[in-house]
């Protein structure tokens, strides 16, 4: 089972930022992401109960290389207003690599 080392970057932020964040990570070189709904959250910006759209959060998972992770975080820091509720953390994971399906099959 060939495994590759990579960074799993997790970003939790406001629902209204979803289009912006998708565009941002793609621009910074991500090759894929997974988005999950957050039921509710609590942090420096208070309770986000998830009832109104402006109160909802989502979570984005990104398997990326170390440089891409750094670029994404830097771009978040640079381009997003500090008032947005945003939490991001990363750690190393081993990723399964599959032999891709032969084209035309």
């Amino acid at each position, binding site marked *: 089972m060939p495994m590759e080392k990579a960074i799993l970057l997790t970003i939790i932020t*406001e629902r*209204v930022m979803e289009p912006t964040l998708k565009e941002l990570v793609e621009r910074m070189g991500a090759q894929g992401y997974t988005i999950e709904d957050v039921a509710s959250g609590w942090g420096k910006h*208070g309770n986000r*109960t*998830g*009832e*109104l*759209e*402006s*109160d909802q959060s989502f979570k984005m998972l990104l398997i990326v290389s170390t440089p891409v992770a750094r670029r994404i975080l830097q771009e978040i820091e640079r381009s997003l*207003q500090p*008032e*947005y509720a945003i939490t991001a953390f990363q750690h190393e994971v081993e990723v399964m690599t599959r032999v891709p399906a032969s084209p035309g099959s």
Partner: protein
Amino acid sequence: MVDHTLLDAIGHNLTAPMPLFFALGILATLLRSELKVPDALYIGLTLYLLAAIGLHGGAEIREVGITAIWMPIVACFLLGSMIPIASYFILRYMGKFSIHDSAAIAGHYGSVSAVTFAVATQFLSSLQVKPEGYLSAFLAILEPTGVVVGILLARIALQVETQQHGESDGSVKNRAGWIRPVLHEALTGTGSIILLGALVIGYISGQDGIAVTKPFFGDLFKGVLCLFMLEMGLVAGRRLAEVRAVGAFLIAFAICMPIIDGTIGVLVGGFVGLSVGGATMLGVMAASASYIAAPAAMRISIPEANPSFYLTASLGITFPFNIAMGIPLYFWLAKLVFGS
């Protein structure tokens, strides 16, 4: 028109199922009940209400013809622009709020609450008062107008202040290109697109065409509204906890501003020739504050504004006030001034 005094009208209103379901929602929150309306249901009910309002309004416009309603439409546009501008100055210079907060709150009051509109319709119909059916078209106009004006206000005010201080604020420049997304968000947000879309569908299909949907979009409306008000009570109830934190000025604003706006709305409505019911409805639209379209749009466009201010004011104070007292008040006023 069975009611005669203001107190009668308020009492009649408060014993109807919709306000009572709203109260139940608030009570459940205060009792820390686990009761929760799932997100999907909430969105479903919203779609239903907006589509129903739009369809009906569109078919009615077709009946009377667009030419017959240009006066109220112009009035409506003016209202939608003036209310946020007035609100902005009150908040900024009397309330000492920041530019961002003032503009964001102002945008909420310039926009409109479709649910308040729906409850007002039911209130009038329970009194056998029939407002002009095409009025729901105005909802579709007022909703984005208020939001866009609010955001423009923030932009202009920041520009002006920057010039006065002789600074060149990079972040403002950066966001010059944001006007397009703002308009886009305001016009293609869930609320606007469904309301506008259903309006056009109602117009194209006409009364005969939409008749087949009446058992769904017509007959069920009042019952569905009860469930929706329950959910609104749950959401508004959670905001009540923050009311004290927003300060006395904003509380006063959230009660007085709807009364002022509502009165202006009623008067304007009467003068452009609307019936007593129609003037009431224009008052209700003017007085109501958005809590669906506006908060999301403001969060995107004016992130510096504190959401607690605009949500608590519009959802925790103005919405309950209008449901409980505002609607009968604007009706009473309309009857007083324009009633035969």
